[in-house]
């Protein structure tokens, strides 16, 4: 079981996928800080969240604002949160990393892979949010 204070933010415009992530992560005992359907909504939800999520799983291609743009804004608010950028478009991998993402995962992700990444980060992270 992971620590209680490992809460995850999910930013995904496809509800079924968002649900999938939520189900997979909560099964692990993680709490979901917020689920947002686009970048703007994500920034607001991030602002409103307390405590701030440890990790945000951020889809790249979303209406209104891309995941990387949202991430940049959210990092300004709280630089400690890490981001896993997810997209079917692998070409944005470099941009995502350069923008400060922890990692990039190409859709469709194997849940095992996603869970593995989150676990690794959680175990490495010692600082409180």
């Amino acid at each position, binding site marked *: 079981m992971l620590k209680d204070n490992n809460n995850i933010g999910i930013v995904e415009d496809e509800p079924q996928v968002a649900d*999938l*992530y939520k189900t997979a992560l909560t099964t692990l005992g993680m709490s979901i800080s917020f689920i947002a359907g686009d970048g703007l909504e994500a920034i607001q939800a991030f602002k409103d969240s307390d405590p701030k999520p440890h990790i945000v799983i951020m889809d790249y291609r979303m209406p209104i604002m891309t995941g990387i743009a949202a991430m940049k804004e959210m990092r300004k608010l709280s630089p400690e949160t890490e981001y896993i950028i997810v997209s*079917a478009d692998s070409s944005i991998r470099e941009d995502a990393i350069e923008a400060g993402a922890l990692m990039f995962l190409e859709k*469709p992700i194997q*849940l095992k892979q996603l869970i593995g990444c989150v676990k690794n980060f959680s175990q490495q992270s010692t600082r409180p949010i």
Partner: protein
Amino acid sequence: MMSLGFLNLNELGDFTSAAVENDTISFIAAHHYGNVFTCNRAFCLLTGYSKEEISNIRWPEDFTAAELRAWAVNIIKGSKSNVTSYPHELELIAKDGSRVPVVMYVHTYRDGAGRPIYNYSFIMDMTEHKRLENALKASETKYRELVENANSIILKMDTHGNITFFNEFAQLYFGYQLNEILGKNVIGTIVPVTDSSGGNLSKMIRHICVHPQLHKLNENENMRSNGERVWVSWTNKAITNDQGDVVGVLCVGNDITALKNAETELKWSRDQLEMRVSERTAELEKVNEFLLNEIEARKQAEKRIIESEEKFRILVETSPMPIILHRGADIIYANPAAAEAAGCSAEEIQKLKFWEPILPQFKELARERELARLQGEGPPSVYEVKIQTNRGEKWMKTCSVKVMYMGNPTIMTIGEDITPYKQALTALKDSKVEAELYVDLMSHDISNINQAGMGNLELLQDKVKLDAQGQEQLSTALQAFEKSSELIKNVKKLQKVKRGDLHLEKIDIGQILYRVKDDYRMIPGRDITIHLESPEGCFVYADRLLYEVFSNIVDNSIRYSSGSVDINISLSSVKIDGKKFYRVSIEDDGPGINPDVKKRIFNRVHYEGGIMRGKGLGLYLVKTLVEYLHGKIFVEDSIPGDYIKGTRFVVMLPAM
């Protein structure tokens, strides 16, 4: 009555007196120591005195000049014989004081004792004789002077050629003293035996001596005493005796050496001139021929120009493409197609400025470029503009070039209506954009759908206990989603390659291969051995998608084999046609690929038995990417001829 017998003179009496009186020879008789007692008429005529006057004059004293008187007296009165033995020349003084030259035959009549009683003389008037003599003398003197002082060679030779006379000029000319040359033969002295050209002069001289009349004028080579050869022009005249026989030859010669030399030179010059004239004539003939050929060529050229002009006229006038000639702003010429494109008549279009039909957004561009071109600058010749015609707007592709027309710089613009092309291009672009949009949308949405499907199946797999069949079905469902995802990824990659949307950079192939090895060596449930031989520093100019090339091949080796599989990857450099390539060989010991399948393995789709197979894009993507990077890929059997023993994929990429 006359007697027929011979009479002595003293018997003739009157006859004798009459004979003496009337004779033309003057007669005078005088007492030996006294006056004249008789004379004849001729004497009167000779002296100019009458008989009466003469009777009172002393003979010879009064008839002779003082300086000759004594001598005359001595001759006439001093003679001891009755007849002087020879005539005496004397000058008598006539009545008018003139001197009359005479010749006297003096007689003395003596008595029995021998005492002179009378003297009488027969006197011949020598005036004419003297005159002739003087004239002759003068002539002779003149002749002598002439001969001696002549600037001509004057010589005489006898009939044997021996020199009998050699004037002073001849002496100086030939360099001989008179005593050296007189009596010598001309041959060997002043005439060489043969002349410079080998002619026999000796024979010639002999002939002249014998037949001078046949050689009145003659030119031949002569020789000076020092051996110098000279040329003389001779005038030869026969010297004959009273019988008319030739006894010698008078030769008058003039030096013509300079003339001969001049003649020789002249001849040489003439020969040279003739030669030059011949040469020049030949040159002129050549030039003439050349000119004639030139004229012919020009005529041909003119003919060709006319033909060309006709061709051009037909070409231009009937061309469906607008063609205009413009200079500055003005249109000088527009073909019918141009007039039609502009929507006006041929006359009207020439009143337009060339940029007038062009739409505003292109007008300035066209104007600037064509004016710059006319100035000699080099703006782009080919560009596209839009024009307004009476049938709406049209896209025109124009090609402009500076030409010389009627001696003035002019711009020729040829247009091509590319409206359909532009429309097709626009439609194509729109289609492409739309297609890409659909691909993007679909790949995004399908990815999400796949994500939802795969993810939930994964959760189900963990949550629900299924029997073997159920597990298999679940696994199959998951694989279907994976394939779908893979297909989408490949479509996007293919789209990227086809679009040329690759970021080419310097990539180390070796590092890519090591990554592939690392990624595929640990596949759960499979015994995979990957051997890699890769030197360092093998760089190519490629996109990071290059990973997909090798990962695809290795993935296929694993996927289409079962159990354990050995994969050998080697990297080497080769030279093909002088160019360096890197050769990546990926060889497995899997089940191999059927030769028929090998033929179409890189195709996007293929049909087997009328059914479409090979829906995957993997190797098609690999081939497309390799070829985009100017490389090659081919497949062969690991063991040649035995395809079931494994497959080898070879990728060749240009080295950087």
